[in-house]
């Protein structure tokens, strides 16, 4: 069985400028239409396999991000969308930015761009799917992976 057949994703806006957010949404819209592959943008972490994050983290949203990540069932992958989510981007020097998504939770795929184009977001998700399958394999065959993920 492959998990990557119809993955559901959840999107959380950490402190993005909206540029990357609307590009994530645009990827699910008619022009790019990832929904035809069975990818659905869900609002519920417990239904999601892929977490897309946009924007850098700050003290206020770090616990929220962590909570969403923890609520997602195993195996799961995280895609950081946009330069802000990768490193902090233009806001890196702002007093209220801790850094990219990986300062709070582990990230599997980094999608750069400011704003990241829908094509590259889709590409990032496709790469994430391969990782998801690997994790799933490890998860079912190796009991130790269950604890770590």
């Amino acid at each position, binding site marked *: 069985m492959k998990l990557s057949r119809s993955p559901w994703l959840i999107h959380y*806006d950490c402190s993005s400028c909206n540029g990357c957010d609307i590009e994530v949404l645009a990827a699910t819209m008619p022009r790019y239409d990832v929904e035809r592959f069975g990818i659905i943008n869900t609002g519920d972490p417990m239904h999601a396999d892929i977490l897309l994050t946009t924007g850098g983290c*700050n003290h206020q949203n770090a616990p929220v991000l962590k909570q969403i990540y923890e609520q997602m069932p195993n195996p799961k992958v995280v895609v950081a969308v946009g330069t802000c989510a990768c490193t902090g981007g*233009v806001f890196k020097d702002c007093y209220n930015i801790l850094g990219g998504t990986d300062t709070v939770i582990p990230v599997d795929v980094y999608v750069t761009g400011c704003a990241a184009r829908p094509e590259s977001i889709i590409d990032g998700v496709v790469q994430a799917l391969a990782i998801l399958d690997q994790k799933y394999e490890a998860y079912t065959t190796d009991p130790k992976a269950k604890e770590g993920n």
Partner: protein
Amino acid sequence: MGKRSIVPFGPQHPVLPEPIHLDLVLEDEKVVDVLPEIGFIHRGLEGLVSKRDFKDYVYVAERVCGICSFMHGMGYCESVEHGMGIEIPRRADYLRTIWAEMSRVHSHLLWLGLLADGFGFEALFNECWRIREDVLDMLEATTGGRCIFSVNNVGGVVRDVDNATLLGISRKMDEIGARLKEISSTFLKDYTVKSRLVGVGILSHEAALELGAVGPMMRASGWDIDMRTTGYSAYGDLDLNINTSNDCDCYARTEVRINEIFTAIDLIKQAIDKIPNGNIIVPVKGNPKSEFLIRLEQPRGEAVYYTKGNGTKYLDRFRVRTPTFANIPAMAEIMRGCEVADIPMIILTIDPCISCTER
């Protein structure tokens, strides 16, 4: 009095892609109070002026918000330019106006889509965004970006658009107008859509002024206040028709925004007819010394930009007052007494942009 309960809304919530947290105090199905909590996407980018050259800061100012990014860059530049007494070329003014109005078209289409999603009309949601992609194509062809354009700079704009392309845009805008007309009848005449919007979230004529609402919120409550009438950029040369409504509800706000798209299309065409030839940027000498405050009309309402220079290349202070911030008290007011099911509609019809609000 029934039993009171508190329902948390957000920060991660399907209705809104952006994080805002509301504590809704409920009595059965009625909302009796709303306590907003913000700060999830505060970055502190106003503070960056002390670390970035005032010319480079344009690129940070643009990233206040990715939806109306062009106007943020424009507001910052206009404020610095006026403060320094720089007169930018007329062609740059016109190009700024054209791009600003195109941003308005794409922003309102985006909002219409989210509204349709809010009342569960997926097909309409997709249709709005399909039209929006065509506007983005034009923006990308002329500026090079889909969300963040980076064409503004202190002293003018950095990219010119040739006149043939402008004519092409003008023609394409007609087509977009025609397609919009088709979907707007669904928004304004469909029985189901009307049942979700008419009479919901009433902000009275007086309350709108008292609570300091701005933009389409204000105009849907019968005030014809629009900062474009102050004639910044090229707006002084154009014929501007202010769209208002007296119904004060969610339906009125939808109607005002739909009409504003048609107005924006009209403004773009007027500007393309009148655009003069010439330079697009003038060299900037020296550093800003004085302070200046300018008000622009963004898709969501009036935005205020304040800059204060000190003679070095770093500004002392940059301040933005964004429209959503001004609209939050009005939103909290119209939510009191509404039904839980109407909350998404009310939040959406103020067209919140949390990223602007918290910066």
